[in-house]
């Protein structure tokens, strides 16, 4: 069998067996559910109408209630159900109103347009209702003052409520698309970060598992170590990224259906930029996680052995975030040319147009060379550590004990 044949068989086994496992199907379903929930739930809650009942004692109250309803619904789209609805009930005395409030018949009590009474354990709805009535009362008072005092007062109110200086923003032609690029780059960054840590761990535990159940000795008797490592990365990578893609598609469909978020128009180049670095970043970390997994024989040790990679991914993520404030600072430049942080930093800097084409190409070349070198290093460590069962094998020890 050719080298790629065995690699392919190993990748296929990973895909087949994991697709058959309940754990994979459940985590995929759960991830999709969570994403759909995040998209759909806010629109469900936002769509509801805030209902409350206000007790009225004395005169002048109805105007305040009407104004509160008008203000609360000022931003509603025509045709949608109103955001705020307030029912009223009239009482003869303040005492009667307070009694009704204590009994829970009403949510607040307005007295002579000068006082609002709310329950002591008011809760969220009560206090927001009081705020609403307060703002409405102010508006009614201002209106009254303006009506009584005429133009002069109107001018003062206007001065107090408008900005004195007009703000003019210097815009470039591509400002909007630049913002979109940055948003997409950041979105991709978060996805890469998640994919590296989540699917990297899958690869790590997959390798450790083979070592802990000793099947690895049967494997390496006929398959070369690099084929095993490559097959694992390919198989688990494909499966993980499929899960990611399915989740993304579900999210996009949900967003389109509910209209919860305005999706920007996405440029092809920014998607390609993202995809390129996603693949580079994933491969780079995947081979390292695979090599790390070969160093330990027990699942309990697998998590601690991943620390260096996890730390590097976190560092790359944070360097990338600081890049937003300072796209050409020393940290950003370091992050661009240091291969392990480049997948996090370069897409963001490219989106911010802080990289010349030459710098971009240089970063790609460095990263690709790093993958070539890391694959060999990881392959050798993997080979050196595979048949050393028992306690954890050191990185350097594994390197030295591997020959050929």
């Amino acid at each position, binding site marked *: *069998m050719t080298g790629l044949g065995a690699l392919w068989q190993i990748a296929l086994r990973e895909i087949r067996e994991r697709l058959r496992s309940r754990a994979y199907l459940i985590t995929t379903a759960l991830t999709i559910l969570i994403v759909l929930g995040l998209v759909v739930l806010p629109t469900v809650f936002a769509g509801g109408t805030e209902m409350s009942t206000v007790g009225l004692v004395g005169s002048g109250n109805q105007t305040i209630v009407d104004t509160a309803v008008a203000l609360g619904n000022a931003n509603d789209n025509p045709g949608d159900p109103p955001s705020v609805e307030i029912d009223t009930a009239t009482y003869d005395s303040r005492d009667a109103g307070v009694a009704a409030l204590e009994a829970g018949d009403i949510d607040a009590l307005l007295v002579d347009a000068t006082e609002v009474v709310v329950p002591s354990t008011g809760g969220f709805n009560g206090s927001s209702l009081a705020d609403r009535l307060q703002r409405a009362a102010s508006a009614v008072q201002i209106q009254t003052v303006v009506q009584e005092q005429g133009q002069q007062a109107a001018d003062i109110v206007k001065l107090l409520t408008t900005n004195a200086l007009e703000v003019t923003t210097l815009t470039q032609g591509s400002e909007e698309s630049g913002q979109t690029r940055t948003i997409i780059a950041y979105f991709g960054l978060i996805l890469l970060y998640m994919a590296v840590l989540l699917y990297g761990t899958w690869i790590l535990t997959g390798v450790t598992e083979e070592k802990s159940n000793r099947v690895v000795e049967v494997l390496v008797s006929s398959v070369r170590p690099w084929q095993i490592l490559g097959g694992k990365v390919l198989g688990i990578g494909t499966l993980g990224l499929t899960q990611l893609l399915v989740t993304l598609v579900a999210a996009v469909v949900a967003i389109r259906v509910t209209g919860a978020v305005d999706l920007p128009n996405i440029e092809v180049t920014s998607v390609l930029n993202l995809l390129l670095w996603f693949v580079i970043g994933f491969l780079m970390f995947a081979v390292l996680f695979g090599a790390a997994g070969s160093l330990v024989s027990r699942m309990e040790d697998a998590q601690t052995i991943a620390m260096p990679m996890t730390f590097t991914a976190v560092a790359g993520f944070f360097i990338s975030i600081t890049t937003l404030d300072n796209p050409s600072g020393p940290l950003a430049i370091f992050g661009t040319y240091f291969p392990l942080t480049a997948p996090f930093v370069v897409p963001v800097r490219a989106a911010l147009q802080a990289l010349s084409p030459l710098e971009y190409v240089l970063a790609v070349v460095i990263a690709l060379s790093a993958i070539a070198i890391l694959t060999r290093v990881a392959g050798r460590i993997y080979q050196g550590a595979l048949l050393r069962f028992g306690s954890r094998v050191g990185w350097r020890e594994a390197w030295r004990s591997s020959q050929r």
Partner: protein
Amino acid sequence: MLSIQDLHKSFGDVNALSGASLEVARGQMIGFLGPNGAGKTTTMRTIFGLVHPDSGTVTWDGREIAHDDLLRFGYMPEERGLYPKMRAGDQLAYFGRLHGMSKHDAQSSATTWLDRFGLGDRAGDPIEALSHGNQQRVQLAAALVHDPELLVLDEPFSGLDPIAVETMSGILQDQAATGKAVIFSSHQLDLVEDLCKDVAIIDAGEVVVRGNVEQLKDESPIRHLELEIDGDAAPLLQALEGVQELSTDDHRVSAIISAETDIRGFVARAQEAGKLRHFSYTTPTLSDLFREAVR
């Protein structure tokens, strides 16, 4: 023909192999014996390139073993290893595929071997659902599924019940009879004596004895002599030349004597001393050879 010549290997300060040599021809089944830690597993691993010797050679049909050769070898490591959650049939077919079989061949061979081990109805069960003995059968099937030319089995009989031992012995004999080269390690000397015409005994990293079992016995410098008569047999035996050990159990006296000792006339002398109930003169057992070799 598998040929292992003068292997040396040290792990740090520990000398695992110091001059291990053996040969296994096609159609031959060799029992590979040695005390724990003598270097059996290390020697077997060098065949598959899992251990790289410091010096010495391992060849197959006169050539250094290439990766393609490994696809025609079958290996059962001492530490059994299968995927616990993978179905038995899938698992065997997978190992067949890894050894270069087509999908169809791998699947039909997996079925054949499961049937042969009496596990045909368990093909769809995950390995973890099988008993220890059945897992071991699947493990052996994994070494056989691609119809290898060389079988290397590390302790294939350990932990098996007598019936499973019988099945497995039968299969190994079949393999040798159809022209496969078979080498397996074992501590069950009686079993090896029954199964193998040839053995190799390794001690402290060096193959100290190898060859045909009958020949080794003939060449052994000792013989066993047992005698039981009415009366005391011990003086009779003591009178022989080259007596190395003498032990008495009730009336029966056993002696280890030199192979050179002339015992002609001994039976007649015994009969004169008392009524002869038992007399035996044999070459040493494999256990004796083993103890002699690793002393």
